[in-house]
């Protein structure tokens, strides 16, 4: 079940290591210390300048919905509930990221909606994993 993690436990396993800060919750990206290029998830090399020193930075928890869709049948590898929404969120950091979108009424989602970051639990092969979402705040 996709439900907000209000109390992420110490043993919570992120769906991918290095992309989430659990407390306070935020998405982690990589910023090249030479040219400032920002990537999510972080790469080991800067794809902009070839720089090798990438620092982990927390992305803004507030953004706006750039585009989105509602997925109505489960794709390969996904064991959570359907339907669910996925979108592209534009952040003031100068980056857009693909993220699950949470809202009380998915059918009412619209481009430009303000959204805020939260952690999300998704089923995994050996128990729940911590994922991420942006929730409509309007």
């Amino acid at each position: 079940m996709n439900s907000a993690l209000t109390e992420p436990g110490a043993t919570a396993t992120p769906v991918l290591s290095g992309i989430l800060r659990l407390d306070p919750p935020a998405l982690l990206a990589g910023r090249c210390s030479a040219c400032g290029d920002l990537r999510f998830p972080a790469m080991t090399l800067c794809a902009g300048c070839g720089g090798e020193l990438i620092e982990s930075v927390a992305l803004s928890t507030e953004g706006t919905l750039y585009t989105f869709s509602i997925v109505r049948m489960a794709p390969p590898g996904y064991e959570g509930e359907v339907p669910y929404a996925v979108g592209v969120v534009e952040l003031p950091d100068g980056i857009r990221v693909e993220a699950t979108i949470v809202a009380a009424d998915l059918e009412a989602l619209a481009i430009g909606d303000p959204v805020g970051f939260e952690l999300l639990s998704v089923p995994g092969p050996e128990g729940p994993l911590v994922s991420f979402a942006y929730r409509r705040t309007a």
Partner: protein
Amino acid sequence: MSDVVVAGVGMHPFGRFEGKSAIEMGVEAAREALADAGARWPEVDALYCGHMYAGTGAGHKIAAALGATGIPIVNVENACSSGGAAVQSARQALLSGEYRNVLAVGIEKMPRGFMDMDYFEPWRQRIGHAVNPLQFAFAIRRHMYEHGTTERQLALVAEKNHAHSVHNPKAMYRREIPAEEVLESRQVVDPLRLLMLCTPNEGAAAALLQARPARRGEVRLVGHGLRTAQRAQPIGEHMPTDSPVGVEYESVTRRAATQAYENAGLGPEDLDLVELQDTDAGTEIISTEELGLCAPGQGGALVESGATRLGGRLPVNPSGGLLSKGEPVGASGLGQVYEVANQLRGRCGPRQVEGARVGLTHALGAGGNCSVLVFEAAGSKP
């Protein structure tokens, strides 16, 4: 420089064929292409085989079935653009002067439902982001927002391509589907409904290309373009996890088309027909703009005007497109070549584009790779 002539084409129907392997379909398509060219397999100098799911050495298995002549064989995997990439590799090999006869074949056999693609890392699959058409939905939703493209215009793409398919015995779906029915089909990835999405399926197609002067009426492959996504690509086929704000490069389709037009010495104004990547109705609308068939933002209006229907100014997907044929990803690009080559030879019967002399194919694949090919009937320009 000698011409690259499309001497023969062949196509195994696209659909579902229980008990028949992709290799077997590829052999049939290859034999049909050879027969169409009046050529024999031992004359073939090299084989390029496009596929994504057919496993190790697919092209080698086809060659073994046709007769192990010991020729060079290269398997080409460029996702949904594999067939286009195989043909452009064949063209480059011929232009290098090393070969005279090169066979390009595309094959595929896919399960039903959303494509299971290891292009997406396991974590993206786990969180439900590994959905191919989701990316197309993102692109067209944004297009609707920016340009006022309507759901009805999306439905009209499907209506048009299905109307064309009635005349194509090699298409999987061959019935007219009115826009109203498209709009009543269930949502899959909003705003894309079931009948706005192509079906992953099975099939094969092949083309025998030869380096020699073209005779009047023969089809020449006069241009190719192959380009991949850059950092700041418009959202869509390259399936990014992120993109920068405030910079946007030209789309991969526009860059591949520019390359193909330049090396053909032709432009969109010269085209008589186009077979493009209608994996979904939205991608057709966006691709008509990016190929230069209309101004940016006008793709919805273009389909609504009827210009891209058979009988219109510039028919798009007269074969019925992927929406009607289905999309066996390794074969689909060669399926487009099959259609264009037959159109330029006047062999398409009730779906013939009157007087067609110049045609273009366009395929888009994962990783943001796009192949564009331009064909011209020899002797069509003084």
